[in-house]
């Protein structure tokens, strides 16, 4: 007999699944009922994930055996600090995006509500599962829903970008399957913990094949995480998607990062025999190239949505490069960075839609072109006089949006005083810690990449912000309902909370990273000691 609290581990998957099923049954017509169901599910998810976050902050892991099968036969869900943190991030972002969508987006097309719920189910499942093939199934559930979400609202741009997105992700899924089956063929198990226990004992002649299989699997994850050169699909798709869908999509790319982090550290940690740290250089190099490409993409972005998409690339690259360094303290900082960047980029995607609403399409393109070629900047307005004397008053809505945009810019660029800066500092400081010998050359490259990409982001965001808030004609006031602004404020407030509580948060992520780097507790928790094996 197990206590009811043990079932909490599976609740983040069951709740959105039931809510999704209920919204399918309720049909498309009853908007109030649908909104109520969705809201209840997302609020419940936030509460559940907060509970899980608290219970996970302990040594050891909690497992949930589906159908109570013994671990070697059945599928397990595993809750540790990392998965609890990811579930919490997904739930908070899901809540914010859902509230945002209630203002208008949920009416923009059919089946928004079921897709949204199944999306959350897939996300939470991917974070919680402890089985490689089950990870594939949840990946597919998440992706299938995201195809619908990316197309939500329809229109030529979305369908064109969505087509590329779907084809690329189907290809990634096929690679995932090839990787999984090679791993099964060699190791004879799909349970991640069991796999980690067996990796060291793989015969030398099979080892190359296993590593090849895992590399193929890694490519599938890295396509999701948009590592250069696998990430060219990302900015276009994210920019074309509707605001709430884009906010959710921004955590989808973090699922790729999560999978790399989890499986790479589990299988190629110090206990892996001759395979230890396999591919570390590739991860760091790929991450650094992604940062470089992302920084250029940020600078070259001609509108806010593409800017947000490009900053997803920068944050993916930063995370991959930091993870590839292979130090627990660095990974801890990277996890703090991950939490902050998910929230900030989610807020930015929501904000972009509010800012762009009152503007002419193409105004950004003109502004950037003008800047580059220096033409037509100082055209006379026709009626100077009164306007010049008083100046153009900035409406309250624009001012509020502007402050939020500023906060997003500080967070994403990693400037003090907000959490982006603290997280980047937490990534870099262990690399240059006194007493650890001379810093590696790669550490200098990473430091330079982090700082330069921050600079590129600042330049691009200042340019976009000036154009959006100061240079836009004040004639047409934007209409922003409070329902739409609240989620942005919530996400930014959480970032501020992450800044104020950076100490405890960093302790948490460092503990999570240490558990990942030394997975003995994970293995013991999942596989059990021989005495309590069933």
């Amino acid at each position, binding site marked *: 007999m197990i206590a009811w609290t043990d079932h909490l581990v599976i609740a983040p998957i069951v709740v959105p699944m039931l809510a999704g099923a209920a919204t399918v049954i309720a049909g498309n017509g009853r908007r109030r009922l649908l909104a109520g169901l969705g809201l209840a599910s997302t609020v419940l998810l936030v509460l559940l994930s907060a509970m899980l976050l608290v219970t996970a902050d302990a040594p050891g892991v909690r497992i949930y055996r589906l159908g109570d099968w013994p671990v070697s036969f059945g599928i397990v869900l595993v809750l540790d600090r990392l998965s609890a943190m990811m579930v919490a991030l997904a739930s908070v972002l899901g809540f914010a995006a859902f509230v945002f969508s209630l203002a208008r987006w949920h009416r923009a097309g059919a089946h928004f509500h079921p897709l949204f719920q199944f999306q959350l189910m897939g996300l939470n499942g991917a974070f919680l599962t402890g089985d490689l093939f089950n990870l594939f199934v949840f990946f*597919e559930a998440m992706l*299938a829903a995201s*195809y619908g979400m990316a197309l939500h609202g329809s229109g030529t741009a979305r369908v064109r970008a969505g*087509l590329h997105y779907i084809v690329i992700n189907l290809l990634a899924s096929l690679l995932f*399957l090839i990787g999984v*089956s090679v791993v*099964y063929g060699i190791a004879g198990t799909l349970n991640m913990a069991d796999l980690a226990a067996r990796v060291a004992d793989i015969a030398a002649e099979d080892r190359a094949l296993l590593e090849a299989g895992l590399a193929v699997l890694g490519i599938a994850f890295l396509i999701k995480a948009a590592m250069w050169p696998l990430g060219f699909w990302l900015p276009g798709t994210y920019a074309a998607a509707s605001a709430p869908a884009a906010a959710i999509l921004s955590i989808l790319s973090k699922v790729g990062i999560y999978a790399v982090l989890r499986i790479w550290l589990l299988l190629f940690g110090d206990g892996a025999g001759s395979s230890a740290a396999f591919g570390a250089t590739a991860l760091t190099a790929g991450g650094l190239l992604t940062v470089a490409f992302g920084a250029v993409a940020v600078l070259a972005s001609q509108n806010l949505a593409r800017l947000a998409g490009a900053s997803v690339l920068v944050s993916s690259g930063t995370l991959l490069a930091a993870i590839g360094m292979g130090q627990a303290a660095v990974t801890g900082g990277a996890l703090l960075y991950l939490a902050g960047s998910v929230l900030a980029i989610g807020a930015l995607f929501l904000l972009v839609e509010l800012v762009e609403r009152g503007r002419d399409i193409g105004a950004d393109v003109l502004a950037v072109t003008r800047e580059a070629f220096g033409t037509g900047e100082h055209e006379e307005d026709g009626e100077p006089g009164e306007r010049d004397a008083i100046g153009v008053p900035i409406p309250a809505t624009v001012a509020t949006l502007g402050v939020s945009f500023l906060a997003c810019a500080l967070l994403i660029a990693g400037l003090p005083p907000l959490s982006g800066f603290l997280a980047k500092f937490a990534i870099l400081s262990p690399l240059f810690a006194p007493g650890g010998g001379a810093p590696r050359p790669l550490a200098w490259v990473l430091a330079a990449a982090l700082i330069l990409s921050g600079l590129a982001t600042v330049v691009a965001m200042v340019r976009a912000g000036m154009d959006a808030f100061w240079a836009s004609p004040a004639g047409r006031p934007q209409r922003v309902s409070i329902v739409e602004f609240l989620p942005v404020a919530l996400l930014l407030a959480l970032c501020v909370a992450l800044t104020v509580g950076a100490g405890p948060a960093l302790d948490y992520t460092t503990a999570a990273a240490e558990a990942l780097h030394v997975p003995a507790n994970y293995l013991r928790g999942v596989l059990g000691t021989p005495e309590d094996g069933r």
Partner: protein
Amino acid sequence: MELVVSLAIGVLAGSGVWLLLRPRTFQVTIGLALLSYAVNLFIFSTGGLRIGADAILGRGEVGTLAAFTDPVPQALVLTAIVIGFATTALLLVVLLAARGLTGTDHVDGRERER
């Protein structure tokens, strides 16, 4: 038998990759379908190729690897087939929508300029 199966996987995967690189959406879809057949056969073959061997124990039988085939790849391939089928159907719908909205079946939504 190994040779026949590996040749089949190779031919399917090769044609799939070639079609995937073509500019028309329909070719891309068929390419993905062929690739998924190749991958499904590949998954199936990771359990070892046997003729006439059961995957499920009868009542009272004790399984030995010599007499039985591995059931896990068969379960995996079944899941992969179902998921691949569903996502391909979804892709077809998007393909039709793209054709209707852009007026062309080029993957980029516009014809190459000559």
